[in-house]
């Protein structure tokens, strides 16, 4: 009980500090400290309440138990990470985004195909595409190839729609300007329309990072070899070993954030000129 009360007191104190900090000058340091403090508060509150109220670890393990489990099972976690993220998600991500990009460039020359494919692409992007996982597992087998295939299907349409839309972004005046130089199709594509499309292309690439990881993990629910993050989560949930499940979630969260972060960083470098970046 004392634990829980202490945790709640800590929460109140930390929140008061955050309110105080956010009234002050918002510099780079505070922009980091405030959310960091908030995150720490959640962990302390979680630990305090679980320990203080004696909540069973098969319902919610405390963060300390998750950390301990994480530290002792690094080889397994690494093996699952390689299976699901490196083999399944990454390869599918590159194949899916790459082919969507190429298709977008190809249909760019045909207004007819654009008019036809864009509504269909938008439609498919709103569908529960993940449902295709059982079929692809059936076609490509239990190993990572089927996971990569699911990822390809999941990232393909968001990437296609974003790229096609991005390629229409250059305004009329700039296209007229290219015409006064009598630039040919490839010149105006490379010098004007692709650079102008970059913010959209990166939007597609960023959305796809999360989709890739989700696709690779969920596809494992429909069948997998005895390794992989999705496999581990389902089996450990079955054994009520929730500390291992949470450790696996931590890995997924780290991988997901890092993947997204890297794409956001590349975006920052490539589209430094865009108003949202400067």
């Amino acid at each position: 009980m004392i634990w829980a009360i202490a945790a709640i007191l800590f929460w109140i104190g930390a929140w008061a500090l955050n309110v105080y900090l956010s009234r002050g000058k918002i510099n780079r340091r505070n922009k980091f400290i405030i959310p960091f403090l908030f995150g720490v508060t959640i962990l302390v509150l979680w630990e305090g309440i679980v320990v203080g109220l004696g909540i069973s670890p098969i319902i919610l393990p405390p963060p300390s138990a998750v950390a301990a489990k994480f530290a002792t099972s690094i080889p397994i976690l690494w093996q699952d990470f390689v299976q699901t993220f490196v083999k399944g998600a990454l390869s599918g991500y590159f194949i899916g985004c790459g082919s969507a990009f190429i298709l977008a460039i190809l249909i760019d020359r045909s207004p007819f195909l654009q008019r036809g494919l864009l509504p269909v692409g938008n439609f498919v992007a709103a569908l529960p595409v993940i449902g295709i996982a059982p079929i692809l597992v059936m076609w490509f087998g239990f190993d990572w190839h089927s996971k990569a295939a699911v990822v390809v299907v999941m990232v393909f349409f968001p990437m296609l729609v974003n790229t096609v839309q991005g390629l229409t972004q250059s305004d009329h005046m700039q296209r007229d300007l290219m015409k006064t130089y009598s630039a040919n199709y490839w010149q105006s594509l490379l010098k004007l329309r692709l650079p102008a499309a970059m913010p959209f292309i990166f939007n597609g690439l960023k959305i796809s990072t999360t989709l890739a990881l989700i696709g690779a993990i969920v596809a494992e629910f429909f069948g997998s070899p005895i390794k992989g993050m999705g496999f581990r989560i389902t089996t450990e949930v079955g054994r009520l070993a929730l500390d291992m499940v949470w450790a696996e979630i931590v890995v997924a969260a780290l991988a997901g954030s890092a993947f997204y972060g890297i794409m956001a960083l590349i975006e920052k470098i490539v589209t430094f000129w865009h108003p949202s970046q400067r």
Partner: protein
Amino acid sequence: MSDNSVIHAEKLNLVFQTNDGSVHALKDIDLTINKGDFVSFIGPSGCGKTTFLRVIADLEQPTGGTISVNGMTPQQAREARAYGYVFQASGLYPWRTIAGNIKLPLEIMGYSTEEQNKRVEQVLELVELSGFGKKYPWQLSGGMQQRASIARALSFDADILLMDEPFGALDEIVRDHLNEQLLALWARTEKTIGFVTHSIPEAVYLSTKIVVMSPRPGRIADVIESPLPKERPLEIRDSKEFLEVAARVRDGLRSGHLDD
């Protein structure tokens, strides 16, 4: 049609088909622009001044009559890169530096890197932007951006410069300054300039020939050969000759409106 003529239009017509019926944007335009002329097109919106400039540039297709640019069709002239075009907005690419933007047409036209760098320096100096080549457009003021876009149009040394309200979005003080610079630039380069504006003082101050246009249908109401000397300090705007020309332009604009 004298040997000196650069742009020659005869009975030029352009009818747009829109959802609300057809719009007669240009009606029976007859006009000759000679080498070295500074021609302003002035008139209310919808009078076809921009449309006419775009026809010269092969950005619109006329539906009747003939037009020649440097003795060729507009399309041939465009493909021969006969003119530089300056739009109302600078249209500089935000992902390229000022120098990179000026190099854009040069890259497309296949100039060597060495030649590109040389020309960038030349035109930056012409528009008084030397030293700004490494900046990005969004780091410059609106007036500087527009000067950079003029430099871009000058970089490949076309004989004709077509400008569509290039200073329309700028405030009056900046505009005066740029007008002065433009005259100096015209004197140095001896280009033929077509200039669209809706400001009477700007048209009178800059031009050797003022084409007054009126709307519905878009047509020429008056063509005024300016009696002003080639050397024009800003103070000339208070002179008697200047005010007389301005009055004639105003009359031309008004007579166009009487038909409404």
